């Protein structure tokens, strides 16, 4: 587990690189894309566990904080979808440069899944895992309300995080059913609820030429729920599904 800063000095990103453990080292690396707002805190432990399991299977794995989140530089009020796209592209480059992997898979949870799918059209990505994806961006804004920020100015807050009007607009416009994808993209849609929106997303991805695997492991996927005690959500069975898929699908 090697934590480090990477990217531009003025916009440094915090990441944790998990090199392969054991004798096997695969040619593919995996970049993990965190969810947003309080979901990030709730998912951190699950991402640590997923990273450790993937590194045990020979993958170089990188999990990182977007600018304005976690330990990375920047403020949440300056976030935008374009900025998240850029952060992910930087993380992919970093893993390729630092670990020398030939190809990169992306695993994204909730909004992180949407960022991962968007990256597949812009960057050379071997495949994506969409974990309980936010299919329509406006759903991410459920629970947002007016508040005051650190300087006392009025802002919109979601789960203790101020959201800029720019990011709100970006999220309202986000719709994975219209996000272009490259043909033959390998894709696992791993969900905790067999909801029509996930089935619809799979149909659409298949229509556009992706090679889609759908896995539903019924369980507790309440990522956006606010927990006043800081509990973590760790769906063990679903994490295993993701690891097993990557073991079979990635080089």
């Amino acid at each position, binding site marked *: 587990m090697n934590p480090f800063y990477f990217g531009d000095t003025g916009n440094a990103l915090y990441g944790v690189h998990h090199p392969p453990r054991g004798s096997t080292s695969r040619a593919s690396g995996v970049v993990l894309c965190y969810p947003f707002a*309080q979901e990030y805190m709730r998912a*951190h432990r699950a991402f640590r566990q997923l990273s450790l399991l993937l590194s045990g299977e020979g993958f170089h794995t990188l999990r990182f904080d977007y600018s304005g989140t976690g330990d990375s530089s920047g403020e949440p009020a300056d976030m935008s979808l374009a900025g998240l796209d850029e952060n992910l592209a930087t993380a992919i480059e970093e893993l390729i440069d630092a670990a020398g992997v030939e190809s990169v898979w992306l695993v994204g949870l909730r909004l992180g899944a949407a960022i991962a799918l968007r990256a597949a059209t812009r960057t050379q990505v071997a495949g994506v895992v969409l974990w309980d994806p936010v299919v329509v961006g406006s759903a991410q804004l459920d629970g947002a309300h007016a508040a005051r920020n*650190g300087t006392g100015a009025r802002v919109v807050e979601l789960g203790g995080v101020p959201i800029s009007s720019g990011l709100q607009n970006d999220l309202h416009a986000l719709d994975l059913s219209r996000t272009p994808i490259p043909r033959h993209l390998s894709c696992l849609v791993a969900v905790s609820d067999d909801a029509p929106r996930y089935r619809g997303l799979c149909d659409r991805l298949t229509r556009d030429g992706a090679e889609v695997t759908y896995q539903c492991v019924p369980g507790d996927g309440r990522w956006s729920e606010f927990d006043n005690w800081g509990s973590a959500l760790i769906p063990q069975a679903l994490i295993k599904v993701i690891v097993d898929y990557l073991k079979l699908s990635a080089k």
Partner: protein
Amino acid sequence: MSRQRVVKFGSAAPLTGVLTEPVAGVARKSVSVVILNSGILHHVGANRLHVQIARKLAELGHVSLRFDFSGVGDSEARRDNLSFEQSAPLETTEAIDYLVKSQGAGGAVLIGLCSGADVAHLTAVTDHRVLGLGLMDPWAYRTTGYWLHYYARRLTTLSVYLNWLRVRLARARDRRGQSTAADPDPDMYEMPSYAREFPPRDAVARDLQTFVRRKVELLVLFSGGLEEYNHRGQYQTSFSDVDFNQQLRERHIAGSTHVFSAIDHQRIAVREVTGWISDRFGGASLAIGAENDPPTSRTA
């Protein structure tokens, strides 16, 4: 802009921390700050609270270190058999060692929420380099005033009556064999593993008196989410046998959750913690050229 870099230290397990150094041009203070995990929340803190505190402290000239206890966040697990109550104070002492050796710190203030507050207290018992304790939702003890506030609020709150009604209805459903809300599934959730037990009040009082004699400054900041505390002044009253000698500051953010979820409550918490550090430890600065080790990784 503050400078952040990753540091690793620790003898029993590699512990990961983020060191935040003062903003360029600001005089570096001699007192550094260590910010501790609460439960399984990693060193960023709930809703990035620890990051906000660290960056504000950098503006004030204080170096701070936010690190993860072994097995938490981005730190490796220990291989020995020490309990959390044993290992966490040892690791906090190692964090202070790091600050003294690499930053020339003349002592440290420990900041912690909930279990982090407990560890800060336990560390201060044995480590005399601790100059201040900023404790958020520390061990608290009910007083007569607590019960007066408790019943006064219940008598005037409609939701209490509605809740009473809900409980009665739920019990009636149970009796008919219908299910109610399920407990969290252990395969799905990981709760903070530290089972928080409040020590006997007299033992805590003895420690507090010792801290005061050692000139340790104390901040107790309560959220609205700790069941044992409900009004400002309760802490000092509950320790009426301790002579705090003006070294205690007590604050209460009523209405806040235990982890200061709302950004308005985060803002107040950051202001209270950093304002207290500035008031009590803002005087002494290090001489120019005080020792610093070279960065071990790129900075943010």
